[in-house]
Each structure stands twice: as structure tokens, then as C-alpha cells.
């Protein structure tokens, strides 16, 4: 795997992301914007299921999901660019895997809410307690995913595949 990471580090895209003054930071900005829409929408849905803004129709919160998809697309494309710049930094750090586990878990819980809780709300039926637990879980996972993303900066032990990083 280290050989593959070292190969990625030598590609033109990887060198460009690292050496161009703007490239890395432009990717960071788009990544942050994408995460803002993805996580922001997820948090709004979770808060609503937990009982905040209960005067609104829950099923209409599905209207935020296209913005979450847009955010996810932005975050993934920019994230791949950032990953190309420093592949060993992320892919040798288990926090990176945890970030993805959190975000995928949160997205799956939102899908569950959409499939199970939203139809109940459309029919005017009360939500079961499990829906609140699902929402609370998704809220924790969204914030956990963002937290793991920030912790990547502090927990990587290898910056480049070719040499060890000394902090």
C-alpha cells in the first residue's frame, strides 16, 4: 500500500495540490462548504425529529435532502483532491476511516428516517420513540464525522509515504 501511496504522491495532480498556493486552500474551502450543506441539512432534520420546530411538517424537511446531496458531491470531489495531495496522511490514519464511518452511518440513519418516519408524519401519525433515537444517533454521527475531520490534522503520523513525519 505504501508503494501505491508513494506513486499517487508523484502524480501531477498530487504535486499541483501541494505546490500551488491556491489549489489546496480552494479545495479546503469547497470541502467546508460541502460539509456545511451536508451536515447542516442533517442536523436540521435530526432536530426536527427530536421535537424542535414541531409546528412544521416533518415530511417537508425532505426538501433539504437535495441540498445535502449537493453538499456531499462538493465534499467528495474536493475531498478526493485533498486526498490526492496528501494520500499517506489520511489513508494511514484510522481517524480517517472513523470519519467515513460516522458520515456514512449518519446518512444511513437519515435514509431510515425518510423511509420510516416521514411517511408516518404524512399520515399524521405519532412518531415512535425509535425515530427519536435514530435522530439523536444521526446528530451525534454528523458532529462526530466533522470532529474526526478536524482531528486528522492532529493525529496523522505520516505525511508522505516516502518518509516519516517528525512533529
Amino acid at each position, binding site marked *: 500500500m505504501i508503494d501505491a501511496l508513494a506513486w499517487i504522491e508523484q502524480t501531477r495532480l498530487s504535486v499541483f495540490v501541494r505546490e500551488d498556493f491556491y489549489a489546496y*486552500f480552494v479545495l479546503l474551502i469547497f470541502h467546508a462548504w460541502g460539509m456545511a*450543506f451536508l451536515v*447542516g441539512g442533517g442536523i*436540521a432534520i435530526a*432536530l426536527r425529529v427530536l421535537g424542535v420546530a*414541531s409546528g*412544521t411538517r416533518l415530511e*417537508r424537511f425532505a*426538501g433539504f435532502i437535495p441540498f445535502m446531496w449537493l453538499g456531499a458531491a462538493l465534499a467528495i470531489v474536493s475531498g478526493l483532491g485533498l486526498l490526492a495531495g496528501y494520500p499517506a496522511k489520511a489513508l494511514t490514519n484510522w481517524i480517517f476511516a472513523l470519519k467515513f464511518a460516522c458520515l456514512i452511518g449518519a446518512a444511513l440513519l437519515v435514509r431510515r428516517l425518510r423511509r420510516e418516519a416521514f411517511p408516518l408524519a404524512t399520515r399524521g401519525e405519532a412518531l415512535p420513540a425509535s425515530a427519536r433515537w435514530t435522530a439523536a444517533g444521526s446528530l451525534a454521527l454528523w458532529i462526530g464525522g466533522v470532529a474526526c475531520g*478536524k482531528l486528522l490534522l492532529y493525529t496523522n503520523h505520516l505525511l508522505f509515504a516516502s518518509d516519516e513525519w517528525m512533529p
Partner: protein
Amino acid sequence: MSLPNDPLFDPVGIVVWAIDVGIYDVMYSAWGWPVVELVHFTGLCLLMGAVGMFDLRMLGFVRGLSLPALHRLVPFGVLGFALSAGSGFMFVVSAPDQYLYNPAWQVKMGLLALAGLNMGLFYLTTSRRLKLLGPDDAPPLAARLFAGASLTCWLGVIAAGRVITAFRPPSWFWCAWCG
């Protein structure tokens, strides 16, 4: 780096104060800076989840949601802002020269001020008219403009915050008020 002749801020005095009150020791403990960053970003998440989504609805997207009822999300945005502002304050007082003269941080603070001004004007001039709107009604043009300005400011705050590292003094130095 030699410190500028700054008539407004005293970076050394700020750090001395941060040491006296214990913030400096917290920040430079083993996990101080990362934990405070997590608080900062959790606050931003809440802010986007509440204010950002309210702005999207007020822009005319996501019809079917009553704006007065959706406004109940906003206190979570205020909580998020308080978390971000408190943690941000801890960053600044622990390394003031890295923030006060940093172009990206100054732009971020300018956008924060604009977001605050925009919010104040919205509540003074337009928010009452929204109470009469039904869930499927389009918000008035003024509300859409306020929402667009708010979302633009907050996305700008996020962008400027992400590039603070790129514009650190002494490589970059902005101080229009320095002698």
C-alpha cells in the same frame, strides 16, 4: 517577528492576560487546541443546521415549511454561534499576533460583522411580515435578500476561517490601523 506599533491592540498584554486567567495553559496543554477546535466546528455545524437551513427556506426553497415555526431552530444557531465565538476567542487570545494581523481573520471578522448587521436589520424591518405567511407562501423579496446576504456572509465566514493558516504573519501582515 517584531511586533507592530499598534494603537488598538496589545498582543503581548493579551497573551499575559490569557496566561493570568488560565486560557493559555488550557490551549497549550496536550489536547487543548484540538478540543477547542472541535467545539468551534460543532458550533459552526449547529449554526449551519439552524440559520443556514432557515436562510434556504427564506430564499424560497423547501416550500411547505412554515417560517415562524421553522424559526424555532434559530436558538440552536445562537447556541452554535456562542460555542464558535467562545472557542474563537480562546484561539485569538492564545496567539493574538497570528490572528489580529492575519488578512483572512480580518475578512472573517468583517463578514461576521456584516452577518450581524444583516440580522439586526432583518429583525427590525422584515421579520414581522413573515408571521403572516403560510407554509407554501413565497417569502417577500426583502426577506429573500436578507436570507441571501446571510447565507453569503456565513459561507464567507467559513471560507475565510479555512484559509487563516495560509495568511499567517509574518509572511502575511495586514494592519491598516498600525502606525
